[in-house]
């Protein structure tokens, strides 16, 4: 024993030394196992932790198992009946009301919940601040809203609702801030007032509620009192059974109610109706009497008025006669006047004409006279001139000449005579006469000459004289002519003057006549006019009098009428009030007649089922991803261990030679491996469990109002993963050892020949090889030299890259849903629930209101039903689905895209089959042409599936109204209006919703945008899980790379030392090794991208839920990230290793080969 102990001691020392000597290897294994086990356990623990946290919260605050509401409320009999059920632990009758609270312009709806009573304590609010309400008018407010709105203790909540039938006070003072376990999320549910959704809740004492009958019952049953989880199937089954019993009980209670309360109520109502009818007829009689009197008075008044009117009318007639006369007289006068005027005008015109004529003549005459005078003067002047010339020049000249000639002649004659006488004398004297005779002859001879001259001149003169005489005659003639003309003109003018004078005379005559008429006729007319004026005045007075009398009478009449009318309205109001009361009572009774209990379990609490789904989703991710993680980790550890065993070959040989048993020898590696593994499991598991569930649950905590996270370790997962990891390492170590141990010690002690260098394929491709640099050749050959290391590194790196890519890919697949579903598939924004379902004809008015509203692109009457238990023969699973039927197929196609996911080929609906979503087809294992069973109004129908459409969120069955009619035999009754809002109003959807909530036809509005937000916020939280995954994958990648590089360096210490001795600088040495590392990482990373896409597919497949389809989408950027991160980690590792490599002593190279 002692020997054995010693041996063990030596071995133990050896192991401890081994560990301290190969610290980095040990730590690598430790870390790899730690990270993967920690990650696996941590993520796996998130779901139970979340559920446990919720479970605790529900247990601590006594969350109800059932809540029941009823159309008729409840009384103590009902409570007692429920209490008698054996599974019921506690019953709490309670109240609930919804009220509008205005804040600024915003109308919020508050839900008022009754505080739990001290006995049952169901749904105890978790008080965070302040005190519970003790007094009248106090309330608690929920913490989330208090924080959101900045409401503090001491503030008041004031209702603006007019309905005061529910609560005693209209204003509540906040005395505390508390959360009810009824609400685990921030959704507060829907209501049928205000904008249709509840903003917050307050809690008041039950005493604050007015109604006699309870409006709500909370029940706590054995199901939640037992140890089983509220999220287990067991609980669900129990609740289902209990629910059935409660439902059965409800019929009894309703029957009792009908026979007791309802009977009384009915009797009361019929009495009241009778009374009402009597009273009504009485009032009606009174009214009709009053009305009769009034109509009589009215008639009398009308008669009187008519008489007065008649008198007035007669007077008016007379006046009208006078008026006529006046008009006639006026006309006559006017006629006369106009005639006279005409005459006058004529005379005037004539006078004017004549005057003008005369004037014209006169001026003509003046001109003519002037001209004539001028001509005369000219002629006179001319003549005078001629006269002067003739008498003063010509005539004297001629006379002088003639005279001179005469005198000459006379002289000659005288001479002759003298001479003759002298001759005679001489003859007498007898003197010679001859001289004398010659002289006489001479004389005689001259005389004819002179005579002739004289005659000629005289003739000439007579020509002149004649000429002058002619001129004189002409002149006188002209003078006479002019004188004549002048006279004729004067005559003409005189005539004109005469005419003018006669015209003037006529004018004066007519003017006198006219004046006569104007002055004479006016008087008669004036007389008549006066008469008419007086008459009219009289009539006017009469009229006024009559009018005032009429007014007075009418006033009296109207007041009488108004009195009657008032009486009538009052009576009517009272009557209709009474009638309404009666009809309300009737309605109530009718409702009571069809009384029903609605039994809700926890799943119906807002957000409750989401909590379970979210937890499930995380768990689904945890199923696969960490498994890959573990696989990669194990793979790397495996190679590390087998390397180690190989390295210690000589030692194995030595030990074997020394006589140690195989078991002892292999125990070293087993212990080494398991120490690292178990240590890693414990530390990693511990770290994983304390960090990851908290991170994940806290992230979800943002959406859920849960208390401090309670961490539940998923022990099974921890142990299973730990055992698998450790087993992996040990098994590898053992197998590797076994291989060595089979050999004899001598072989083992001989150093295993270094792996011989070999030519690689590349070398035979001479052109390539020749052109490679020396270092590339070395690298290439080294890469292929250690095929195991090559593979191990590539696979390890690929695994890590794949994990990172898968992390990102998962995130892509999750986040893309919102866009795909609400951008590509659904194109509607709002769903208005109709208060009553109806056929297309019945709902025509409502839908046209929507269709005429320009704020909507599309509005369509639709049927949105819910089918539970949709199933098929091919699958055991059943699921719940919406059934969607659009009234108008064109509108339907605009708002719902039905298409194949891969090919995007549109899918058309027909009247003989249905189209289902892809997820449903997967779950139910349905292909095109198969049939499924769907439930409509509790009846199953077998339908052929003609198309499988792309869809991500929710399950949908689409069909046409005709198909509905075909299978059910009934006309479809539409229960909702689906609308798509125009682009401009996308941001005002609440306003639109508010507008339509005012109509009685509309009961609630669901905004798709809010649903999207809710879905996306859930999925966003899933993001943190993917981030944790990416982070852990990165961490693992780093450790793996560190480990692999470490192995690489450890194996080549001697080589590194040698090249250092050869004078390689630090960087050159590092490059010598890193070049290979980088290439290996490159191979691994590229491989990892493919692997990552596969991983993503696996993981996405595993997180698929019945009603959500996650598309397997890895965005290119995710691949880029995977690649970059891997390289970044690789570089980081290389950087760390650089120092390690620097530390390698060159002295190593001098050591002998072990």
């Amino acid at each position, binding site marked *: 024993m002692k020997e054995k102990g010693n041996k063990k001691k030596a071995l133990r020392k050896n192991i401890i030394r081994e560990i301290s000597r190969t610290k980095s290897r040990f730590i690598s294994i430790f870390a790899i196992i730690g990270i993967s086990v920690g990650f696996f356990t941590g993520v796996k623990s998130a779901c139970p932790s979340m559920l446990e946290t919720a479970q605790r919260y529900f247990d601590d605050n006594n969350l109800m198992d059932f809540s029941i509401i009823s159309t008729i409320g409840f009384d103590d009999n009902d409570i007692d009946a429920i209490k008698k059920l054996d599974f019921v632990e506690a019953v709490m009758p309670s109240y609930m009301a919804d009220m509008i609270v205005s804040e600024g312009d915003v109308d919020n709806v508050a839900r008022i919940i009754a505080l739990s009573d001290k006995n049952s304590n169901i749904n105890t609010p978790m008080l965070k601040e302040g005190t519970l309400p003790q007094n009248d008018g106090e309330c608690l407010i929920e913490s989330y809203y208090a924080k959101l709105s900045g409401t503090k203790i001491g503030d008041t909540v004031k209702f603006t609702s007019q309905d005061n039938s529910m609560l005693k006070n209209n204003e509540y003072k906040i005395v505390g801030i508390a959360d009810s376990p009824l609400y685990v999320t921030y959704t507060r549910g829907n209501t049928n007032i205000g904008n249709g959704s509840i903003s917050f809740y307050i809690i008041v004492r039950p005493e604050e509620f007015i109604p006699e009958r309870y409006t709500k019952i909370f029940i706590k049953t054995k199901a939640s009192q037992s140890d089983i989880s509220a999220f287990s199937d067991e609980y669900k089954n129990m609740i289902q059974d209990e629910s059935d019993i409660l439902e059965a009980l409800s019929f009894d209670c309703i029957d009792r109610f009908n026979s007791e309360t309802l009977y009384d109520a009915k009797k009361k109502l019929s009495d009241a109706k009778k009374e009402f009818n009597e009273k009504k007829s009485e009032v009606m009689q009174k009214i009709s009497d009053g009305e009769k009197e009034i109509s009589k008075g009215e008639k009398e008044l009308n008669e009187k008025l008519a008489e007065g009117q008649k008198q007035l009318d007669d007077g008016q007639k007379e006046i009208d006669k006078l008026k006529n006369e006046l008009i006639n007289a006026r006309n006559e006068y006017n006629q006369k006047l106009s005639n006279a005027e005409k005459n006058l005008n004529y005379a005037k015109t004539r006078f004017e004409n004549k005057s003008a004529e005369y004037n014209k003549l006169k001026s003509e005459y003046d001109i003519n006279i002037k001209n004539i005078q001028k001509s005369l003067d000219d002629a006179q002047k001319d003549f005078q001139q001629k006269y002067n010339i003739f008498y003063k020049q010509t005539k004297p000249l001629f006379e002088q000449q003639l005279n001179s000639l005469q005198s000459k002649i006379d002289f000659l004659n005288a001479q002759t005579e003298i001479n003759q006488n002298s001759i005679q004398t001489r003859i007498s004297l007898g003197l010679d006469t001859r001289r004398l005779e010659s002289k006489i002859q001479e004389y005689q001879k001259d005389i004819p000459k002179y005579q002739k001259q004289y005659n000629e001149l005289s003739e000439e003169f007579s020509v002149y004289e004649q000429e002058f005489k002619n001129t004189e005659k002409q002149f006188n003639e002209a003078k006479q002519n002019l004188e004549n003309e002048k006279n004729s003109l004067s005559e003409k003018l005189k005539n004109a003057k005469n005419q003018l004078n006669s015209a003037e005379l006529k004018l004066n005559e007519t003017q006198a006549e006219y004046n006569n008429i104007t002055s004479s006729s006016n008087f008669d007319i004036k007389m008549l006019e006066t008469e008419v004026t007086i008459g009219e005045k009289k009539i006017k007075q009469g009229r006024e009098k009559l009018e005032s009398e009429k007014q007075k009478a009418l006033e009296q009449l109207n007041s009488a009428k108004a009195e009657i009318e008032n009486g009538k309205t009052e009576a009517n109001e009272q009557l209709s009030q009474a009638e309404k009361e009666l009809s309300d009572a009737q309605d109530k009774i009718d409702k009571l007649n069809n009384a029903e209990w609605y039994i809700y379990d926890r799943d119906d609490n807002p957000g409750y089922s989401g909590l379970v789904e979210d937890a499930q989703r995380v768990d689904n991710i945890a199923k696969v991803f960490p498994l890959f993680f573990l696989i990669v980790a194990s793979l790397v550890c495996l190679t590390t261990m087998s390397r180690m065993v190989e390295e210690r070959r000589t030692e194995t040989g030595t030990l074997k030679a020394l006589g140690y048993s195989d078991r002892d020898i292999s125990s070293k590696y087993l212990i080494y491996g398991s120490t690292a593994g178990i240590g890693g499991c414990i530390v990693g598991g511990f770290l994983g469990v304390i960090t990851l569930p908290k991170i994940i649950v806290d992230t979800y905590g943002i959406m859920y109002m849960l208390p401090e996270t309670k961490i539940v370790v998923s022990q099974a997962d921890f142990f299973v993963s730990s055992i698998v990891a450790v087993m992996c390492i040990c098994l590898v170590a053992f197998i590797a050892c076994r291989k060595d141990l089979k050999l004899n010690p001598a072989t083992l002690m001989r150093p295993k*020949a*270094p*792996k*011989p*260098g*070999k030519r690689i394929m590349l070398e035979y491709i001479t052109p390539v090889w020749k052109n490679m640099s*020396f*270092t590339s*050749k*070395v690298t290439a*050959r*080294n890469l292929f*030299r250690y095929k195991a290391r090559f593979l191990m590194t590539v696979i390890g790196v690929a695994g890590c890259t794949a994990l990172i890519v898968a992390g990102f890919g998962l995130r892509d697949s999750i986040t893309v849903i919102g866009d795909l579903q609400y951008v590509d598939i659904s194109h509607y924004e709002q769903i208005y629930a109709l208060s009553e379902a109806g056929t297309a004809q019945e709902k025509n008015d409502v839908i046209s209101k929507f269709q005429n509203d320009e704020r909507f692109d599309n509005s369509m009457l639709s049927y949105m039903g819910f089918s539970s238990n949709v199933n098929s023969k091919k699958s055991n699973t059943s699921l719940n689905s919406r059934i969607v039927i659009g009234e108008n197929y064109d509108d339907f196609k605009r708002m719902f895209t039905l298409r194949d996911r891969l090919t995007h080929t549109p899918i058309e609906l027909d009247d003989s089959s249905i189209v289902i979503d892809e997820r449903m087809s997967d779950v139910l294992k349905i292909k095109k042409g198969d049939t499924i069973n769907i439930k409509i109004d509790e009846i199953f129908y077998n339908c052929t599936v003609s198309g499988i459409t792309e869809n991500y969120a929710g399950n949908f069955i689409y069909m046409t109204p005709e198909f509905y009619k075909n299978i059910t035999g009934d006309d479809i009754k539409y229960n909702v209006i689906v609308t798509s809002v125009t682009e401009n109003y996308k941001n005002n959807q609440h306003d639109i919703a508010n507008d339509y909530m005012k109509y009685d036809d509309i009961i609630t509005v669901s905004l798709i945008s809010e649903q999207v937000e809710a879905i996306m916020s859930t999925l966003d939280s899933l993001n943190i899980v993917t981030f944790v995954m990416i982070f852990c994958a990165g961490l693992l990648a780093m450790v793996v790379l560190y480990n692999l590089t470490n192995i690489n360096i450890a194996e080549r210490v*001697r*080589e590194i*030392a*040698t*090249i*250092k*001795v*050869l*004078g*390689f*600088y*630090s960087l*050159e040495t590092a490059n010598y090794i890193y070049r290979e590392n980088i290439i290996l990482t490159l191979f691994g990373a590229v491989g990892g991208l493919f692997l990552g896409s596969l991983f993503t597919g696996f993981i996405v497949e595993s997180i698929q839920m019945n009603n959500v389809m996650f598309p397997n989408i890895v965005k290119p950027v995710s691949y880029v990230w995977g690649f970059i991160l891997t390289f970044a980690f690789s570089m980081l590792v290389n950087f760390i290793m650089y120092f390690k490599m620097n530390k390698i002593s*060159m*002295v190593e*190279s*001098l*050591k*002998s*080969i072990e």
Partner: protein
Amino acid sequence: MTKDFVKFENVYKRYKMGEVTITAADGVTFSVDEGEFAVVVGLSGAGKTTVLNILGGIDSCDEGKIIVGGKDISHLNKHDLASYRRYDIGFVFQFYNLIPNLTAKENVELATQICNDHLDADAVLDSVGLSERKNNFPSQLSGGEQQRVSIARALAKKPKLLLCDEPTGALDYNTGKNILKLLQTKCIEDGMTVILITHNSAITPMANRVINMRSGKVISNVINPNPLPIDQIEW
């Protein structure tokens, strides 16, 4: 021929092993002239390897001065030491330290590719008598051949100083003799300064200078005016 080409002056090297300090070089002082074939002999632990390591620039001294070719290497930093090894030193290992993944020629090229002024790999391999085996991997070569490659690798860099650490330690008698002959030839024909350490004092007659060490001290530094050719030495 430079005198005192290599010079050790009072060189100390101490290793701390826990609380014990081992003085591996205890004031070592000696010098070797250029072109000499010097043999350092001594028993295991005499400090001869320490001296060689310090001289080869792969280890540092704690005290003293080492001058090689007029350059003090005792205070060089890491990088300068690498340069010193690269350009000035050729190292022949006892276990050859060939890169198994490289052929004989490539192993030589591994050295030449980092030196600007180097010999042609083929020529060096020819000169060590390995013309036929240039393209063989180390595993395909015998021990002697491998050591020849190792010598070729050291010589190819045209070092100022060839350091050999028990070059025949892993070889049989005849092969060892051949290697020593090769080294002696290189020394004589090429004028290479060779410092060889060995525990085998039988080969000292072939050296120009014999340095005897014991316990980290040089106990004698004798010049042998008439070195014998290796063929004439038997042991």
